[in-house]
């Protein structure tokens, strides 16, 4: 693990405001996401974060973090 479980949970929680606000921001540049697209994007982002966080770091043991 690259970050502690607690920090990981918080980072994932932060995806909520990010995705929710992103829809409004993108509308300014005429990119209109549907609800479904936003949800898929959010879940995708969470997936990427999980992979990044859980990927074993070279030279550190599994139990670290």
């Amino acid at each position, binding site marked *: 693990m690259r970050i*502690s479980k*607690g920090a990981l949970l918080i980072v994932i929680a932060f995806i909520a405001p990010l995705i929710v606000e992103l829809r409004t921001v993108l509308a300014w540049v005429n990119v209109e996401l549907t609800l479904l697209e936003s949800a898929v994007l959010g879940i995708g982002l969470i997936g990427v974060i999980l992979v990044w966080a859980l990927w074993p770091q070279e030279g550190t043991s599994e139990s670290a973090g």
Partner: protein
Amino acid sequence: MTNTYIESFPAEAKVVRAAFYSSFLALAIGGLFGIIQTLHRTGYYRFMDSADYYTVLTAHGVLLAITFTIFFLVGVFTWATTTSLDRPVEDIRFTWAWYGLMVLGTVLTAIPIFAGFTDSEMSASVLFTFYAPLQGHPLFYFGLVLFVVGTWLAGVDWFRSWWAWKQEHPDERIPLPTFMVLTTTLMWYIATLGVAAAILLFLLPWSLGLVESVNPLLTRTLFWFFGHPVVYFWLMPAYMMWYVLLPKISGGKLFSDPLARVVFVLFLILSVPTGIHHQYLDPGIAEGFKFIAMTNTMFLLLPSLLTAFTVVASMEHGARQRGGTGYLGWLKALPWRDPVFAGMALAGLMFAAAGFSGMINAGMNINYLVHNTFWVVGHFHLTVGTAVALTFMAVTYWFLPQVTGKALWSRSVALGQVVLWFVGMTFMSNAMHRGGLLGIPRRTAEPQYEGFEFEAAVGSVGELDAQIALGGALLTLSLVLFFANVVGTALNSRSDDLPANEYADTLSGPSDAPLVLDNLKLWTAIAIVLVIFAYSFPLLSIIERGGLFGPELTELPVSIGLGLEYLWVTTVSTVTAAGETAITIIAGVSS
């Protein structure tokens, strides 16, 4: 021996615990009404008559914004004075007496509110702002008066402790937590004069039928005289927790004691003369007065920005003590698994967002865009509904072991609970803000109209409703987890492996703070002068135009009319005299 609060102050711990449990009961009932009205408004589930909507909304507003918050904070303040002065209260019977008075007041207020659901004549569906023309049963106002008097006596209790302590420690600085309690209490005394006047002089006599009418603008103005500073009454204990508990939990020290004192002094002097910013749209108050209120409001940003700076600096100090490094890398070293920390940090972050929407509310012209819309509801669910409520729930996980002597039932559930609140509130509040920008009104059971559609800039109104309902559901789930933990902890057996009752040390201590900061008389006098500047002319002109009791004053029985006129003249001269005295004190102290 674990040195918890309950071991050092067993008698006080019982009162603090009773206050906390009272506040949680209010949170539970109020929260239930929250989800009911969310589902009703958004049209997902309507099982009650829309005519009962205001009864639900009144219960939600009063129980959460008044009962939950204030019961919790009197507990925190009692903890803070006893702990930081390291002395028990002067007389525990007095402490129980003010607590009992607050309970009695709450019950008396709740009776007419809940009677609104029945067929009885009695009701008080007047919302938590209760100004005219909405009229409630006299019991509602009477209960409120008792409740407020209870808080006044609580303040006397804290002052008594400090006075007794000062006799024994004549040359010491006021300990920071006590300083925060005392300045907040002084602010509360000034603020509640407005609501006391509104109730005792106008609303209660009117509801009893002693006077025929009231001047609605006057009761509104008196309400907001109190209604703005009450938000600081909720917020100051949350700030106190960020200043004295959060640095400790982060593993460090408070960055600056003097800055913290400056912040609380600024809130004491600036909280009250700003209430008119809730009345930007009220006809009958001149623009100039509104402009003064706006200016004072903008100055209030200063102590909040100071707080943001000090709190983040203290957290960074803590993180670096725990081995954190790098420009932003220290963030990783913070104790995110600790629900007390995570909850307070998330609450603080949402408060930053609330600051932005608050600045929009505060601007006189841009306020017209959002006034009385759902935007405002989105805003204050970030402030009182999260910055305050989430901080209170997070510190509960620290306080419960202190006042029960029992270990917390589950730290993981607690962590899940605070994160869930953050996510739920993100959904609910974002959609409320956006709905407000479309003009969707607040305080409306069925915000949809024949032959008219609100048009969303992004997405649709249906999506906004769905987002609000989703957020509300997550918040309700979060509340369920919170109460599971409270009950689970109460059912635990006593533990002797608990953290000690301690609060944060400081990097820059009280000796760095100028002595004048501790001069409570000076700051109170300045606060009173500012209030007189901000309010005497608006109040006089409101009364001149609309009459003390509305334009129909002549219909009053002569004796009452004369009596009230006498009262009015006395009030004016007392206020003027108080102002002069205050100015003399300031001149005396500062020379």
